[in-house]
Structure formats: structure tokens, C-alpha cells
């Protein structure tokens, strides 16, 4: 397991970011006061259930928020620039692809059905690697990317259309497009959700390989802790638009502190006992249209403290790398042990 000080250089720094959406006259507060440092060369996983704001957060790094979404306050510092201040598409085009690239969830729809996959990768090469000139050079570069993502026979595949590829193969093409942009940061928005389990492992393995080869910083977004267990250096758990716990993978998997992290880990299918129902988190996330009082997870937490309903917990530092927002970490709080099942995660060697 790598230590955090290997990544001493912060490449992307989010400070007190708030993102809101206006929907039918109402304001939805999707991302609430989020701060996050992403270190160069690390892979960090943002984990949370649907609607927790994890996609919105990363989309804001690329100016890809939907038309009704906006950054109401906060900073996104990248390379000395504050991306939160960007207004025009022109400014964003300097970031998109060349600095931050993205892999989307559903490879079945994220490729243009009427262009050959070669053309689509070549477009990225031409846009972001102007030093590669001439048709032949671009084409050869595309071949090399295709090979890198594990697509055999690139000369033939270059001329094929997306519908001639399987889901896993298409996701490889999408990854090749992202690589062809030669980005610093790669955002993977649930890259394996739409794929079947055997392909999931292949794609995660591929991303791990490519990260080393191309010296990438990767931000994973996922709702499945199991998927990121053996690729993420750090894990940030998001709930209702805010990080509740953040730490190295080891911190979060083997020493989780927030009740929500406990609940998430307990619902890992790997922990299920034969004959027993899998653990599920009761209730639904709070409405983001309303102001959230206290700990956002309290209403779904059977062991919530009284204070959880009254005041939002501050961020407690457990170690240099590990932080969590829960009153349980306050010295005055009762000592609560994490649930039985997740205490032996270490023995299950989920981190591989």
C-alpha cells in the first residue's frame, strides 16, 4: 500500500465548493461545501449512492454541468487557475481533454454511431496533440492507443463502427479516446457500471496499467466499493452532496469511522452470509431541496446520537490521511463499535 506522502503535489484542489441546480423554480443544493485535494499520480475513488452528487462534482471540473446547474461559491484550483470562475466555452476548451479527460458510464451510447472508432480517436489526437502532423502519423498514433487499450488487430478495427464492438470493447475505445487527449487527470464516471462483472475486472486492470504507463491521476466515481478496492489509493465517501469520510483505501476499508461508511461496507455482497439477506441501508437520502440540519445521514442511522439531528458534525482528523465528519469522533461521544461484519474485512483481503 502506497503512502500518501508519495503524492506530495496537489494537482487539483477543491475549496468549499457549492453547486446548485434550479429546477422548476426550486433550488437543489447538489454539492454542499465540498473540499478535496487530489494529488498528482494518485487514484482516488469518490464513492456514494445515486444522487449523492459525485457525478455533479466531477462534471464541474470540466464545465460539463447541465444548463440549469451552477457553482454558487467555492474554488476549483487547477494549475494556478480557478476553474470555478470559468465562464466561456473557450476557456473550458483549454481544460477539457488536454488537462482533464473523462470516461463515461455507458459505452453503448457514448460513441458516435456514425463515425468509425478510428476517426473518433483521431479527432482527439488532432485536437490535443498538434505536434503529430499528417494523416499517416495520426493514424499510427491511433493504432498505438488501440493496442494500449488491448484491442488487437488495430488496422482492421480502426475502420469499424461502434456497433461492431461489444460493450467492453467500446469502453476500451472510450478509454483510448481519453488517452488520445493526453490528459493530466482522468475522470472515470462509473466506468464499469454498464458492463458485466468479468469485463469489469478487465477494465479496472487496464485502467491500472494505463495509469502507470501514462502517468495519470485518476478520479473514480462509483457506487460500488468493491470495484475500487484494489485500484484506489484513497477513497472519499460522499453522502447528500458532502464528503463524510476520506482516507487511504486502508483507512476506509479497515478502519471506517462514519456510520454511513459502515453501512456502505456492510452492504458489500462479499460480506453476505449464505441463507441471509444482504444488508441494505434503510430509508432514502434526504431531499437536497431543503436545508439539511445536523448530520445528513442521521435519519437513516438507527444508532444516531441526539446531536446528529441538531448540529452538523465538524471534520475530525483521525490521522494525517484519514478524516471523517461524525460526532462519534468527538471525545464526549459514546464509544460505538463498527458492525460485526466489516470488522474482519482485513481478513477477507478485499484490497487484494
Amino acid at each position, binding site marked *: 500500500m502506497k503512502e500518501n506522502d508519495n503524492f506530495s503535489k496537489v494537482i487539483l484542489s477543491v475549496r468549499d465548493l457549492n453547486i446548485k441546480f434550479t429546477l422548476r423554480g426550486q433550488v437543489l443544493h447538489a454539492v454542499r461545501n465540498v473540499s478535496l485535494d487530489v494529488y498528482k499520480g494518485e487514484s482516488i475513488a469518490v464513492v456514494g449512492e445515486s444522487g449523492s452528487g459525485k457525478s455533479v462534482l466531477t462534471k464541474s471540473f470540466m464545465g460539463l454541468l447541465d444548463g440549469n446547474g451552477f457553482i454558487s461559491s467555492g474554488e476549483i484550483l487547477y494549475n494556478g487557475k480557478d476553474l470555478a470562475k470559468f465562464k466561456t*466555452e473557450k476557456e473550458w476548451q483549454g481544460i477539457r481533454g488536454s488537462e482533464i479527460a473523462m470516461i*463515461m458510464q455507458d459505452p453503448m451510447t457514448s460513441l458516435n454511431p456514425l463515425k468509425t472508432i478510428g476517426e473518433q480517436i483521431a479527432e482527439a489526437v488532432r485536437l490535443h496533440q498538434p505536434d503529430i502532423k499528417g494523416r499517416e502519423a495520426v493514424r499510427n498514433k491511433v493504432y498505438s492507443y488501440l493496442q494500449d487499450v488491448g484491442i488487437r488487430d488495430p488496422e482492421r478495427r480502426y475502420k469499424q463502427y461502434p456497433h461492431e464492438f461489444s460493450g467492453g470493447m467500446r469502453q476500451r475505445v472510450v478509454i483510448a479516446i481519453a488517452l488520445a487527449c493526453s490528459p493530466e487527470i482522468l475522470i472515470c464516471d462509473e466506468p464499469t457500471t454498464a458492463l458485466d462483472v468479468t469485463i469489469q475486472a478487465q477494465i479496472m486492470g487496464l485502467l491500472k496499467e494505463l495509469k502507470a504507463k501514462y502517468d495519470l491521476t485518476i478520479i473514480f466515481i462509483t457506487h460500488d466499493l468493491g470495484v475500487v478496492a484494489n485500484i484506489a489509493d484513497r477513497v472519499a465517501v460522499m453522502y447528500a452532496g458532502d464528503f463524510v469520510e476520506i482516507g487511504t483505501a486502508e483507512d476506509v476499508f479497515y478502519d471506517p469511522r462514519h456510520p454511513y461508511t459502515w453501512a456502505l461496507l456492510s452492504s458489500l455482497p462479499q460480506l453476505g452470509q449464505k441463507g441471509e439477506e444482504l444488508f441494505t441501508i434503510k430509508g432514502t437520502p434526504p431531499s437536497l431541496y431543503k436545508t439539511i440540519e445536523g448530520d445528513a445521514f442521521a435519519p437513516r442511522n438507527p444508532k444516531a446520537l441526539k446531536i446528529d439531528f441538531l448540529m452538523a458534525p465538524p471534520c475530525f482528523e483521525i490521522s494525517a490521511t484519514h478524516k471523517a465528519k461524525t460526532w462519534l469522533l468527538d471525545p464526549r461521544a459514546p464509544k460505538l463499535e463498527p458492525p460485526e461484519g466489516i470488522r474482519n474485512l482485513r481478513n477477507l483481503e478485499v484490497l487484494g
Partner: protein
Amino acid sequence: MAKYLVKRVGRSLLTLALIICIVFILMRQMPIEGYFQNFDKLTDAQIQAGLKEQGLLDPLPVQLVHFFQNMFQGDFGVSHSYRVNVPVTEILKDKLPVSIRLGCLSILVAMCLGIPLGTLMARYKGRFFDKFGTLFIVFIQAVPAAVYFLFIQMYGTTLLNIPLLFNPNNWRSWVLPVISMSLGNIAYYGMWLRRYMVDESNKDYVSLAKAKGASGGRIMFRHIFRNAFVPMVQYLPSSFLNTVIGSIYVESLYSIPGMGGLLVTVIKDNDNNMVQAIVLLYATVGVIGLLLGDIMMTVLDPRISLGRKEGGR
């Protein structure tokens, strides 16, 4: 590809043959008045003799074979009432080119204006140009064509000093009819192209292109327009057909000696040979139009696989 084409053309020909047979058989059920100029004054014997002379008393299959034989020699019989005893082909030979030329011109104008209209409306969705375009489309679709045709004629002829009556040798007299006929199609193309482009622009691959760092204009034209145009292609041939057939009012407004209204007239007069020939003509244009639409689709859209489409389903 070639195999598919042959199959597809063969199937079109079969369709045409079927249409001819059905129309032919139906036409034989029509009253026989149309075959004579002075039906009321003829005796039964004379009528029978006349029918026999025209081969109309033969069994239906025999008549059908005769019809096909004549058709391949370019003979569709003579007109009985529209222009008495003039061969049908003679009549159509004068009229058809005028209508086709008008139709082609108006489609061309409609494409040149309607496609940019739809593209710009989609590009500036919700903004001024979109609203302006919507206003135009709603106007064209809601107001009966006859109303704005009249206004175009009225103001066109007085303000622009364009001759009122059509004269094939004076290009200026083509302007107003062509504009009138293209307006409907401009609105139609604009509306559908906008709709398809808006549909496409909400697809994932567009966000990916955006995330790739492609500029707005590049995404609009390289990705969205191209993909939205594919379903449009199917409409083009049929709208051409509609323009050629449906120009009755414009042709009569400007006294254009075209096909418009001809079918209605000859049906009313029971001029069966004319009806037969015109229906055949329109059916041919329609079938060719569909064929062209399909072929263009397959050329533009790689997902439509020719060989497999035949076998599958």
C-alpha cells in the same frame, strides 16, 4: 451491396407491377361512359361494338397482358375526354417536364433554406432565432397555403414587377411559383431537422465529444448535424413526390401547364386511360423515391447492414 441493390430494385419492380394490376382491375369496374364521347346518343349495339373494338370485352387477364405489352412499347392508349383521341403519352410529355422542373427547383430552394433554418434553430435553441423560426413554421403550417400563395402572387407581381403568368422561357416568372411551392417544405425540413438535432445533442456521445474538448461548432456540424441528417434523408424523396403532385393550386394560380390537378380532372371525367397512366406515373415516382431514400440511408448509416437486414427478421 450490389446484391442488395439488385434485390431491392427487383422488389420495387414487383411492387410496381402489383400496383399496375390492382389499378387496372379497379379501372375495369368503372362505368363505361368514359370510353365514348357521346355515350347518351349511342344504341346498345353501338356501345358493344365500340367496347369490342377497344378490346374491353376480352377476359380481364387478356386485357392485362395487352396492357403490359402496350406499356412496354410506351403506349398507354388515347385520352377519351381530356383531349379526345390524343395519345396519353403525348399529353403527359408536355406536362410532366414542367411539373418536374418546378418540383426540383422548389425542393432545391427548400433544402437550401430549410436545412440552415433547422440547424440554426437547434444551435440557438430557446434563443431569438429559434423562436423566430418556430413562428415561421407555425405560420406556414397553420395558415392555409392558399392564403399566403395569394399574398405572394399579389405582392410579388406588383412590388417586384414579376409577370403574373407563367412563361417557361422567362426565368423571372418561375420565381414566385417556386417560392410558393417551397415554403411548406422549408418549414417541414426546418421543423424536423431541428427536432432531430435537439434529440442528438442530448445523447451521450455529444457529451463525450464535449469532454474531448471539441468546440461547439465542431460538435454541431461534425457530430450532431451529420447524425440528425440521416433520418431526414428518408423524407426527401417523398416530399419531392408531394411537391410534384400537390402543386394544383400554385399551377392554376400562375396558369402553369403542369400535372397539378390533372389526376382529379381525369377521374371526374372517367377518362380511364389517363387515370391509369397518371397513377402508374405517380406510383413509379413514389416507389423510386422510397428506394432512393433507403439507399441513401444505407450509404449514410453504417448501422444499417444491407446483407443482414435481408436475412434477419
